[in-house]
């Protein structure tokens, strides 16, 4: 009767030692480079130099084959590193998408040439990616994308607009989901393909979009009939939907779905540790229980991916439960402050809290809205 299994995976000594190594590295690197921890750092805090240092340590492209410059480590090792980077608020935004999902897509679907060309650069922290899924008229309804790639004798001609492309202005490539056949309303998921698009090509226009926090981390990316070589096709023509679903599982299941604002929680505890009311302590116990459960779920998914399983639905659980957790976290921190007025909090804590409060509405939108996650779960349960 078990509907959704999250197998228990034990963190062994090798992983524990790896955690310690990452911690030591971060401490040293933050101090010597005057890096300040940030909340939601995987979206807002890009530092290409830091990404390169991670590459030098061998902590990017962890699971990729050695022959393409990867490290042939496990997804669990990658998971541990990812957690430690998030918890430290490290500036990981530049390489995040490339390391999390784009590289894996290329390994899985790319040609030998694509792998040789790009994977070593991802692993060294020198090649960044943006996501090319959403469009101005296609948000949650991804199958309705209008960006079109027309096949000619010698190339693909790509025309369309992608939106909410985080970090496109810093990125070298974008994996673009495009129609390669006209929309068939009876089979909306057919006729889609993925393309590996070099963002430096002529005809690519990247326009920043200022978000409600006055930051310009995401963009509109316009393709004005750009010419792509035949080998820009990623994977199989017409199989874009199937490919993108797998990519979304990588996007949704990671610890960034519940550790984006961990640094706020940690700073809050440091400041209020000895001033908490019984109610605050009680709320803290709830946070600990929920957070540890989410970690178990996400770690288990990392193992499932490692074992070549398809935890698409489990990923939707982590995404949705993580979003709910982080939204509650902000509210709970307000309750836990034991009637100490916000004005009396330290300036660094106030800053983190304000950033988190302003940024939190995006959590349940990026990577698929809550409504989409619940739709995926319903479908799996046979309700749709």
């Amino acid at each position, binding site marked *: 009767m078990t509907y959704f299994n999250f197998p228990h995976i034990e963190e062994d000594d090798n992983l524990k030692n790896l955690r310690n190594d990452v911690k030591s590295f971060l401490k040293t690197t933050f101090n010597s480079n005057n890096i300040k921890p940030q909340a939601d750092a995987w979206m807002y805090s890009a530092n290409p130099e830091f990404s390169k240092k991670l590459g030098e340590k061998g902590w990017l492209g962890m699971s990729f084959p050695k022959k393409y410059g990867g490290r042939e480590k496990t997804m669990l090792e990658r998971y541990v590193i990812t957690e430690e980077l998030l918890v430290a608020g490290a500036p990981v935004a530049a390489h995040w998408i490339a390391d999390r999902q784009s590289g894996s897509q290329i390994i899985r679907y790319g040609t030998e040439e694509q792998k040789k060309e790009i994977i070593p650069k991802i692993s060294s922290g020198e090649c960044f990616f943006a996501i090319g899924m959403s469009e101005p008229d296609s948000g949650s309804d991804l199958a309705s994308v209008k960006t079109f790639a027309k096949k000619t004798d010698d190339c693909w001609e790509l025309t369309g607009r992608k939106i909410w492309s985080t970090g496109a202005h810093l990125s070298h490539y974008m994996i673009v989901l495009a129609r390669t056949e006209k929309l068939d309303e009876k089979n909306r998921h057919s006729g889609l393909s993925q393309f590996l698009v070099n963002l430096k090509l002529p005809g690519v226009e990247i326009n920043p979009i200022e978000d409600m926090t006055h930051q310009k981390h995401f963009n509109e990316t316009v393709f004005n009939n750009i010419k792509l070589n035949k080998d820009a096709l990623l994977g199989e023509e017409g199989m874009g939907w199937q490919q993108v679903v797998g990519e979304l599982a990588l996007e949704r299941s990671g610890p960034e779905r519940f550790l984006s604002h961990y640094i706020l*929680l940690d700073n809050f505890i440091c400041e209020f540790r000895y001033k908490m009311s019984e109610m605050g302590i*009680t709320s803290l116990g709830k946070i600990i229980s929920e957070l540890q459960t989410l970690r178990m779920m996400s770690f288990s998914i990392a193992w499932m991916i490692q074992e070549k399983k398809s935890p698409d639905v489990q990923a939707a659980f982590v995404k949705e439960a993580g979003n709910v957790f982080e939204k509650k976290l902000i509210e709970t921190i307000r309750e836990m402050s034991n009637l100490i007025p916000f004005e009396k909090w330290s300036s660094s804590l106030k800053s983190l809290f304000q950033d988190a409060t302003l940024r939190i509405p995006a959590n349940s939108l990026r990577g698929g809205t809550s409504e989409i996650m619940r739709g995926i779960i319903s479908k799996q349960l046979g309700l749709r």
Partner: protein
Amino acid sequence: MKDEAKIILDICNKILLKNVDHHLRLNLEPISTQFKTLKDEIISSELTKLLVKEDLGGAGMTLTDIIPIVQLSAQYGTPIPFIETIISNFLLSELNVKPENDFITLTNKTENIQIKKDKISGNFKSIPYLNLVEKILVETEIKNQKYIILFKKGGKLKLQKNFLSEPKFDLDASELEIISMMEKPEQIDVQNLLINVRSIQSFGAMEKILKLCIEYCSQRKQFGRTLSKFQMIQNHISEIALEVAASGASLSTLKNNNKNFYNLKSTAIPKIRTGIASGKVIALSHQVHGAMGFTKEYELSYFTKALNSWRNEFGNEIYWQNILGKLFLNQNKNLWEFLNH
């Protein structure tokens, strides 16, 4: 799962599938044929001795091994002291006492205990299924020493006002015959063990509730279409599924190490998480079932009543949140160290 554990789970499944239904739950009497048949099959298949050491005649399984069996029993809504007997026999076995060949029940809620010449007197609280057993195992403290005592039932049983799932009794005992009495080994924490059993049972019951919701909403039609096609209903059921999944994951550390059944942190995390989930699952499952779920005849209420009973035992999740919060604050660690330790 080991092959042996799979075989045992299969045997258990067959027995419960054949014998447990809502009729049994609503007509639970020690003299009923249905109860006697179920009991005979469970006892004769030695399922109550799964945790008993092999040299005492048991299967020698571990606490982590029997998680799927506790879960399965709760999925079936098994209204008998099956799991209570497994745990009681386990405790006896840990004390090198032979297991019982009958159902027994247990409690650790005792007051005014006195022992005189192999006789026990005192007040025993919240004893599940006392009407279906002849012997009781208790953990109690006498002069700063904890004991585990098996004694014969007697005296007056007082049926507690409970959540109407499993019957629970208080017992005022006077000079009842002790069968075994041993000092409790320090490494065993009976209360945490019982709490963890309840967390596993809660997870199993919530899985069953999810199944009932899916089945009911896929069959019942309103406004010309099945309930499952309404987005609001899908939303409710997906939230139930999410809570069920999180509850299962929260039990993860118990699967790792038998000692975690006694560990405070490993106990608090699933106790809190399954407690939170239970509240949501009870409310949402009744909402999607409408009036049908509120009837005695339809089985949903058996499971939601069980959840309400279990989540309020040994302190509710709010109580345990406070314990877990203090456990962290009293250690000289930052939160990340605490979580990873």
